[in-house]
């Protein structure tokens, strides 16, 4: 009952506040009238009666306030009042308000965007049942040389049979498939995954239409089946449910579509559009090998089993495998990561560094606004003093200050949220190497983060100036503001401390950005060892069914080369399986036949590339010794190889490699292959020194996937279309993909470095700007405060140079302290980004000299104008400013 009554009351007070307020006035008025009436009946004259009643009644305003204080929502009422006052105050100085809001918007926007990224990519659990139980499993070396090797089929088989820590283990591999065109559709290449049938049950995924794979599908002898993702189904088959059960041509082979995955399913990323059963796709021999590392493995831990226990069990199994297979590249350990971590550890450092940088930026923005507010509160100290003298409470003044800064932060925050969604869209479109990009969106937690950031900024920026008014004794403040010669010492000191912090943070950002930029420049200027200008590449993948024999494949390659080489504008052309600069991709172990057998457990390893004889001249890779491959060495006559200089350096020290033989299980069935030439080394992974490479003859007809490289005299744009036409004239069903210039290929592989450097640089420039504004503001403020003092000194004969020197010194002092602080902090921080650096030391002297130089220059510029103004003061004018 009483509860209902209270609720009714609260609603009434909330919704009809204005009416209640009027009623209160009426009630008090009634009381007064009753009193007057009583006084009149006691015999007073009307005037006397009224005056007596008023005297007895007291101050009606105070009375009303006292009654209102008992009302509920009174706090809200006061808050609304404060907001009104603060808004009015801010509107009175729109320039300041706008600047502050923009600064906040930048700070909060950048933070929200980065936080969204970190949360979506690194922190949010995968959208599967019990995602905490999911782990990614890699092979590793117990000596720590390799942590994340992909897994061999044989090892997986042993784990699956013997490991007890998992309810299920599944194995997957990335594949490209040629999807044949039906009707008027063009053929295309789709990103796909082959997976053991139990992957979907392991993840807990149900089909949207049809069924997913069964154990019967996942066998070498089974009928070919495929599962489409929702996206491919909608895009290519118009969302027609009757496609389930129908046959489609994949790599020129007929596959039955058995089901469609649900729309939300975008794992491992949204680029994967097609799934096939792995054991049907791969040869049983490959799946039994212990040294052919090709697969990703996902496991679901048995409930109650920890990652350590599972890791211990698998490591024991793997050690046993190594003991049984002491030869070849068989790993002796495993490495477990939670599945999210397994997919994102590449980008982790870089994201956290950027988040740290935006955090710094926000802190700088806050300090700067606090700084501006301190200046304002100083110029309003007289107002504050008068209000306190009239009985305004100090708490009220502090509250008003905080409300004011929170309004700024909130307006900035709202703008920042808009900005953040823009930044995110840009980030996702710029960096398509971000894993789980499909999961990136702002959710409740991000909004909460934004709110906390807004409140935090509001409090920080408001509290600092509010607390400085602590010792503002009323009288002192009033006196101080009437004679401004030593005005606002305390505040000036506080502002200098803020500035020192601001400059310090800026220095950290500048140094971080400087290091990353330098590292990026090193990366791009590194000698890659092959032609980069005017080189165009495009990839084709010959389907097994239409190109079943080496003859057919060789025929395609030779015809393509002869066609392309006659195209106008093409200077040279070649074929390779893997272009340089695109990463390691494929490496195999081999032996040198003439060398004594290696000790147990040791292997030689080199990257594996198949090229045609014209490839080296097309890519301008110099021939250093011997000869290149010969066009006559084709099919079974292709028993020769070319190696690179790095291989000679590493495996043939002080020995002529020409005429020696290598052998490998992985190419041409262990045949003896004679080394006929040595070519220059290339950087296959740009951020890494050259690896040893063996170039096998592509004209053996052994390979189905190949990339055409063409070097042109001028621009490559003209030859792209004619080359594609040449391919279509040979095989109209063959899709062409990744038509890229070499610059684009390299741009992609240095994208993350450029991206990190550019972003951090932008943050650093922004904070430098803020620090400059801060310095300028503080010094201008000090000059304004000390106008009288300076006037007196000039009048007494101080030289203008001296005045200027002194003001400059005052202004630069916080910059210098901040610089020292920042350099010390950087020494600690730069070690954290060491893993992102290429060819650059964390203590790169150039950066550590340049940054202080730039900072001092900028600080000097910021201080010059106010200092100059101070020295130009007209003493008469200055003394009269009272």
């Amino acid at each position, binding site marked *: 009952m009483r509860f209902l*009554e209270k609720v009714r009351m609260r609603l009434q007070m909330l919704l009809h506040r204005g009416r209640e307020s009027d009623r*209160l006035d009426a009630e008090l008025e009634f009381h007064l009238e009753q009193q007057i009436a009583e006084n009149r009946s006691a015999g007073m004259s009307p005037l006397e009666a009224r005056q007596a009643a008023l005297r007895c009644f007291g101050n009606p305003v105070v009375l009303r306030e006292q009654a209102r204080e008992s009302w*509920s929502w009174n706090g809200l009422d006061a808050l609304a009042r404060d907001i009104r006052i603060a808004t009015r105050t801010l509107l009175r100085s729109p320039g300041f308000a706008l600047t502050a809001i923009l600064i906040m918007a930048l700070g909060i926007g950048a933070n929200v965007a980065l936080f969204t990224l970190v949360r979506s990519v690194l922190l949010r659990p995968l959208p599967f049942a019990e995602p905490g139980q999911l782990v990614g499993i890699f092979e590793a070396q117990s000596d720590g040389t390799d942590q994340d090797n992909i897994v061999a089929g044989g090892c997986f088989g042993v784990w699956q049979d013997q490991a007890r820590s998992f309810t299920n283990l599944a194995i997957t591999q990335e594949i490209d498939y040629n999807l044949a065109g039906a009707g008027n559709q063009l053929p295309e290449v789709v990103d796909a995954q082959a997976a053991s049938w139990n992957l979907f049950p392991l993840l807990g995924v149900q089909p949207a239409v049809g069924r997913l794979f069964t154990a019967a599908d996942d066998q070498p002898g089974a009928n070919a089946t495929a599962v489409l993702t929702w996206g491919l189904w909608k895009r290519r088959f118009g969302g027609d449910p009757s496609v389930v059960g129908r046959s489609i041509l994949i790599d020129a082979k007929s596959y039955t579509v058995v089901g469609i995955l649900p729309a939300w399913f975008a794992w491992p990323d949204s680029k994967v559009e097609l799934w096939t059963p792995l054991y049907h796709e791969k040869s049983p021999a490959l799946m039994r090998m212990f040294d052919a590392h090709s697969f990703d493995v996902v496991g679901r831990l048995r409930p109650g089993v920890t990652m350590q226990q599972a890791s211990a069990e698998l490591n024991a199994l793997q050690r046993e495998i190594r003991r049984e297979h002491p030869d070849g590249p068989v790993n002796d350990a495993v490495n477990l990561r939670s599945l999210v971590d397994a997919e994102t550890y590449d980008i982790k450092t870089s994201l956290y560094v950027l988040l740290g940088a935006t955090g710094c930026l926000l802190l700088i923005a806050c300090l700067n606004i606090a700084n501006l507010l301190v200046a304002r509160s100083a110029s309003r100290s007289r107002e504050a003093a008068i209000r306190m003298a009239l009985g305004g409470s100090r708490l009220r003044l502090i509250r008003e200050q905080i409300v004011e800064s929170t309004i700024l932060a909130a307006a900035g925050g709202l703008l920042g949220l808009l900005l953040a969604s823009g930044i995110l869209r840009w980030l996702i479109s710029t960096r398509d190497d971000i894993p789980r990009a499909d999961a990136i969106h702002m959710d409740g937690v991000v909004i909460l983060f934004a709110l906390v950031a807004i409140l935090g900024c509001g409090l920080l920026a408001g509290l600092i100036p509010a607390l400085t008014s602590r010792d503002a004794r009323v009288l002192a403040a009033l006196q101080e503001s009437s004679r401004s010669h030593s005005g606002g010492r305390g505040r000036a000191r506080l502002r200098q401390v803020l500035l020192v912090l601001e400059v310090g943070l800026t220095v950290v950002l500048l140094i971080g950005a400087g290091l990353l930029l330098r590292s990026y420049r090193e990366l791009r200027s590194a000698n890659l060892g092959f032609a980069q200008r005017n080189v165009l590449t495009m990839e084709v993948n010959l389907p097994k069914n239409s190109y079943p024999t080496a003859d057919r494949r060789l025929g395609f390659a030779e015809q393509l080369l002869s066609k392309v080489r006659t195209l106008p504008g093409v200077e040279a052309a070649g074929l390779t399986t893997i272009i340089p600069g695109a990463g390691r991709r494929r490496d195999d172990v081999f032996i040198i036949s003439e060398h004594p057998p290696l000790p147990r457990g040791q292997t030689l390893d080199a990257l594996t590339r198949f090229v045609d004889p014209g490839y080296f001249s097309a890519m301008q890779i110099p021939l250093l010794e011997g000869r290149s491959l010969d066009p006559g060495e084709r099919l079974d006559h292709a028993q020769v190889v070319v190696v690179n200089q790095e291989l000679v350096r590493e495996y043939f020290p002080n020995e002529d490699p020409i005429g020696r033989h290598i052998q490998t299980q992985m190419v041409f069935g262990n045949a003896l292959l004679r080394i006929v030439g040595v070519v220059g080394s290339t950087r296959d992974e740009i951020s890494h020194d050259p690896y040893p490479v063996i170039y096998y003859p592509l004209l053996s007809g052994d390979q189905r996937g190949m990339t055409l490289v063409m070097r042109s005299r001028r621009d490559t744009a003209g030859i792209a279309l004619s080359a594609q036409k040449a391919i279509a004239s040979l095989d109209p069903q063959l899709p062409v993909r990744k038509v890229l210039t070499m610059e684009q290929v390299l741009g992609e592989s240095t994208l993350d470095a450029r991206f990190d450097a550019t972003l951090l640089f932008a943050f650093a420039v922004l904070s430098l700007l803020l620090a400059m504004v801060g310095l300028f503001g503080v010094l201008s403020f000090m000059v304004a405060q000390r106008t009288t003092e300076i006037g007196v000194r000039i009048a007494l004969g101080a030289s203008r140079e001296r005045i200027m020197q002194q003001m400059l010194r005052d202004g630069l002092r916080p910059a210098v302290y901040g610089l020292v602080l920042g350099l010390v902090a950087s020494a600690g921080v730069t070690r954290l980004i060491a893993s992102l650096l290429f060819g650059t030391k964390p203590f790169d002297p150039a950066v550590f000299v340049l940054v202080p130089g730039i900072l001092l220059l900028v600080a000097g510029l910021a201080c010059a104008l106010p200092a100059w103004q101070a020295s130009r003061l007209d003493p008469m004018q200055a003394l009269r400013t009272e």
Partner: protein
Amino acid sequence: MAKPNDLVQGTLDLLIMRTIAWEPMHGWAIAKRIEQISQEVLQVQQGSLYPALHRLEQQGWIRAKWAESETGRQAKFYALTAAGKKQLEAEKANWNRLSAAIDLVIETA
């Protein structure tokens, strides 16, 4: 003479609730009634009366209604709610115990 400020917080609440227990009253009448019954010993100032009335109303002990006063003007009449009646009984008992205890101390100590 006891000033209202000297009244123990809560005592004024008790007096108000006791006063309007018979019939709904407006603020001025409540003050007058308390003065009369206490033989002018207790003077209730507006500065205490109205905040107390509003506080009691917010808490749901009393409910206000606008009605015509004896002089024909609209006035705000306060009446006890059901919960208020119970509260009044509880506070009365409380007060009796307290004053008896104080008496005991003053008389025997």
